[in-house]
């Protein structure tokens, strides 16, 4: 390798790295142009490698990858809880959930939002990445109106929109996975790469499920999701105070549900109520509960009573 050549490549690599932050695609377009100048086979390689190095955090996970992670997380949740099979109620929950999602900050997601009811008296709601969301029968029983269900589903949509689930994946795991992906433009992995990727995938799923089911998100993520629920709820027209009404049912609870689900994995209801009230105070105009909505909720949830 001659000296000017090496210097030229080094300069290109440095400039490419300096420019990576604003836009990877633009860099690559530049590299394509270099390629067309008939000089840059190795430069394209350099730039592509650099671009892939940028793919190192949860935010770089593609929508399609998020969907596949979410599917397996959903399967793991469903291994812990049976499904409550009630087509009419499931459809109603999906309609409320999809409505709220439409007024969220992330209405479009790879394969849409989908909701299922879990057959347990535990009070819980869980959001897998990619928009697969679960609510328990025990939680639905505590909802008195559509406003409350809407706000709770908005809280879960908030977790998805803010990618809280993906943030649970350990950084080293992602770095490894992105490294195995290499730079070659092939769609099918060889056995060795597939084995390594599957191990990384498995690790990522365990990180997420551990956080969702066992430890819970950190307090700030939960307060964040409550804030988003109030924001999305108010945007569509649900009375935001419904979330406070719901949280009040959890204060001083001594039922069998206490100590599990939301009781275990979420900050205390008292703390959540205080912050929710603050957020609600900033909303103007404040939507009010609507009897037409309460009526259809009562009808849809009648089978739970």
């Amino acid at each position, binding site marked *: 390798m001659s000296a*000017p050549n090496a210097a030229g490549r080094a*300069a*290109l690599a440095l400039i490419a790295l300096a420019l990576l932050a604003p*836009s*990877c*695609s633009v*860099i*690559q*377009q*530049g*590299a*394509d*142009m*270099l390629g067309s*100048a008939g*000089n*840059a086979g190795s430069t*394209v390689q350099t730039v592509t490698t650099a*671009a892939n190095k940028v793919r190192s955090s949860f*935010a770089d*996970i*593609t*929508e*399609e990858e998020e969907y*596949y992670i979410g*599917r*397996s997380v*959903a*399967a793991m949740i*469903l*291994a812990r809880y049976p499904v409550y099979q009630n087509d009419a109620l*499931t459809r109603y929950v999906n*309609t409320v959930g*999809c409505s709220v999602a*439409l007024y969220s900050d992330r*209405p*479009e*997601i*790879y*394969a*849409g939002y*989908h909701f*299922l009811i879990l057959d347990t008296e535990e009070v819980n709601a869980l959001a897998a990445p990619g928009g*697969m969301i679960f609510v328990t029968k025990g939680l639905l029983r505590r909802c008195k109106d*559509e406003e409350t269900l809407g706000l709770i589903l908005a809280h879960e949509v908030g977790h998805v929109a803010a990618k809280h689930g993906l943030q649970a994946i350990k950084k080293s795991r992602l770095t490894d996975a992105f490294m195995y*992906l290499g*730079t070659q*433009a092939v*769609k099918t992995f060889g056995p060795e790469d*597939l084995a390594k990727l*599957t191990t990384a*995938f*498995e690790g*990522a799923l365990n990180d997420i499920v551990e956080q969702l089911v066992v430890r819970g998100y950190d307090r700030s993520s939960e307060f964040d999701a409550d804030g988003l629920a109030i924001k999305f709820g108010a945007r*569509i*027209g*649900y009375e935001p105070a419904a979330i406070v009404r719901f949280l009040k049912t959890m204060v001083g609870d001594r039922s069998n549900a206490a100590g599990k689900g939301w009781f275990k994995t979420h900050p205390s209801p008292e703390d959540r109520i205080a912050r929710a009230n603050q957020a609600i105070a900033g909303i103007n105009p404040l939507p009010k509960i609507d009897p*037409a*909505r309460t009526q*259809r909720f009562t009808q849809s949830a009648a089978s739970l009573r």
Partner: protein
Amino acid sequence: MRREKTAIAALIVLAVGLAIGAAQILVVKVQTTQLRNSPQFFGPTLVTLKAGDRLEKLAEANGWIQVRTAGGAVGWIHSSAVAEGSAAVSPTGPVKTQATANEVALAGRGFNKQVEDSYKAKHADLSFVWVDRMVQIKIAPAELQDFLRRGHLGGVK
């Protein structure tokens, strides 16, 4: 020497490319979505778009982006459905216009169906039956619109 000159010329081209706003190209990042007549979810749709479709950005308003497709159709798409032609894109279908090398490198790669299948093979006890059923639950736009209207939600008339 000649190679150095070529490299410098190429860098100038790159800089010009940056200056004239090459970031006007957007890529659809969701499986499928609609190009809409106006910046709202309900109302007439123009074309079905799919992951990897490339769009030219024309204007932006309240979370919606006006775009032109490779086929020349002009309409609106929600900003959450597109990425700015970056690494966070994984086109699965044929790319309409020339894709950047980085996008090609990421196409369908990473945690994909092949990885899911490999994971399933290791965990034969884990059932995906309800996951597959769950993702099949679809609420049609007309049904959603009717639900919102009857519930006096979202200002839907």
